[in-house]
């Protein structure tokens, strides 16, 4: 699992590749929180999952935890680019009701703006 962080128009973008599972969530959590602490001006975040081929309950739990962190700063966390398998996990866990989900990162960033 690798994560890339960038900022565009005041919106944070997180691009993840690989699997987001119990084996990798701790690494990603640390990376995200380190980046989040040094970017106090960022309120909205878009997480691009187009490179994620598998996600389990631990990965989903982490996304929910990150949503809470972002919400505490008054912003929102949006999800973009779900692959079919990850979308199926989102469907059975009803995560669609928790997150705003977009086809592409561009659409998600526009929604943040």
């Amino acid at each position, binding site marked *: 699992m690798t994560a890339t962080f960038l900022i565009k128009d005041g919106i944070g973008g997180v691009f993840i590749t690989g699997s987001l599972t119990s084996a990798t969530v701790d690494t990603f959590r640390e990376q995200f929180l380190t980046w989040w602490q040094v970017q106090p001006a960022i309120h909205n975040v878009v997480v691009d999952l187009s490179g994620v081929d*598998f996600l*389990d*309950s631990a990965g989903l739990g982490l996304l929910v935890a990150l949503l809470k962190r972002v919400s505490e700063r008054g912003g929102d966390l949006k999800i973009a680019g779900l692959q*079919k*398998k990850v979308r*199926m*996990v989102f*469907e*059975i*866990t*009803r995560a669609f009701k928790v997150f705003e989900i977009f086809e592409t990162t561009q659409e998600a960033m526009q929604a943040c703006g």
Partner: protein
Amino acid sequence: MRTVLHVGAARTWTAALGNVPWPLLPLGNRPLLEYWFEWSVDLGVTDVHLVLGDGAEQIEQYAGDGSRWGLRIHYAFLRDDRSPHSYLHRNPALWQDGLLFLSGPLFPRRLTDIRQKPNPPGGWYWQTSPQGTCAALCPDGNTTTLLLHDATSTAKPFAALDLELLPVESPRSFFALNMQLAKGEMVRYLAPGYGAADGSCIGFNVILPPSADVAPSVILGNDCRIGPLASIGPEVVVGHHVVIDREAQLSQCVVLAGTYVGQQVEIRGKIASGGRLIDPEDGEFVDLQDTWLLAGIQHRNQRHKPYPGLGWAASLLLLVLHVPLLAILYGLIRWRKLGQFEPCTLHARGNVYASYRFLATGAGYDASLVRLFFALGLDLTPRLAGAVALRWWLCGQEPLHAPADNALHAELSDYFPGVFSYATARPDSADPAAAAAEARYYAHHRGPIENLRILRDTLKGRLVYLLFPS
């Protein structure tokens, strides 16, 4: 009349659903093969020829000799380069009394609630498809000859028999057919009384709490556990031995046998098979194996595997402790004529073995010596010796007597005879109805915790009997 079922040709699409050959794929919780057998029985067939290939071992294990359906099953194999018809040409004389021939995954969908009559109306019936499936019903020798000479132009469609032979050639058609059965058609294939008026069918040993919501129509298999506040239906097929945890929501979906559905999980328009979630539209699947979401349940044949060595060691230790005590107390009991061991024959692991059971005389039940004998479990010493000889487990079902309990033994899908059982916790362990109910219960609840419970109850029950015999 005879039936020839050609089930040898593999179908690659079934791999997504698990390691089950297509003739055993569940449609409304029953394998496709079973529908074919029932159709044969309705037609008055007694001999079925199963032409095997892929998945032969599993199919043979399931069908056995066919006596479950009142059929005689003959097995045959066909080389991959031979067509299914070539089997018919091997010995045409066999089919001169009529023939039902089925090749490939075809579901005989009944268009009415009326079962097939033994003598179908005149003529013969034929259907084939580009995928290679083929079906023919020839009521007599003349029409069989027409089939063997490929004179298919004279055949009628199966619709004339109020039957529709639906090919099951993809996850989508498998799912669609299950949904069709879940919508209420399943009752057409059940004996009267086994389906509800709303089209639902609930299996045996299903625990359904009052707070669970079941919206008709659904098909629930045997040995299912539904959690509180779960919502099931409409149009749901749940296989055997499935656990649906609390607040899960299932609608328009198929959950295959041995699946655990986690808390608050929602399955809609999908097939769940163990830890695998399958989209029937394109067959794409995701393997989760996540106990918070979706997971497989341990196969029942594996339930005893984690601790057989421990049970054996405990049996040996108990036996060593028992022998000197038995020598003293049993000697005293025999001297005072308070009881004795008598030979009996018990069903054990895979066979029937001779053993001994302790019978107290009328006066012996009240004697403190016999109560001490029971409290120490010395009446079970012969069984402990059997456990050391691997004839039964340390904890399990009360061993069934042969031949008195042969019917129950045949009925039990899982038989785990044990030294200690629910019955050994009671002073009077001779109630056959209770023993049968407990044997069925244990078959589905076997596990280390249940075994510890049996040991605890036995110890407690026998101490109470020693101290408070009344």
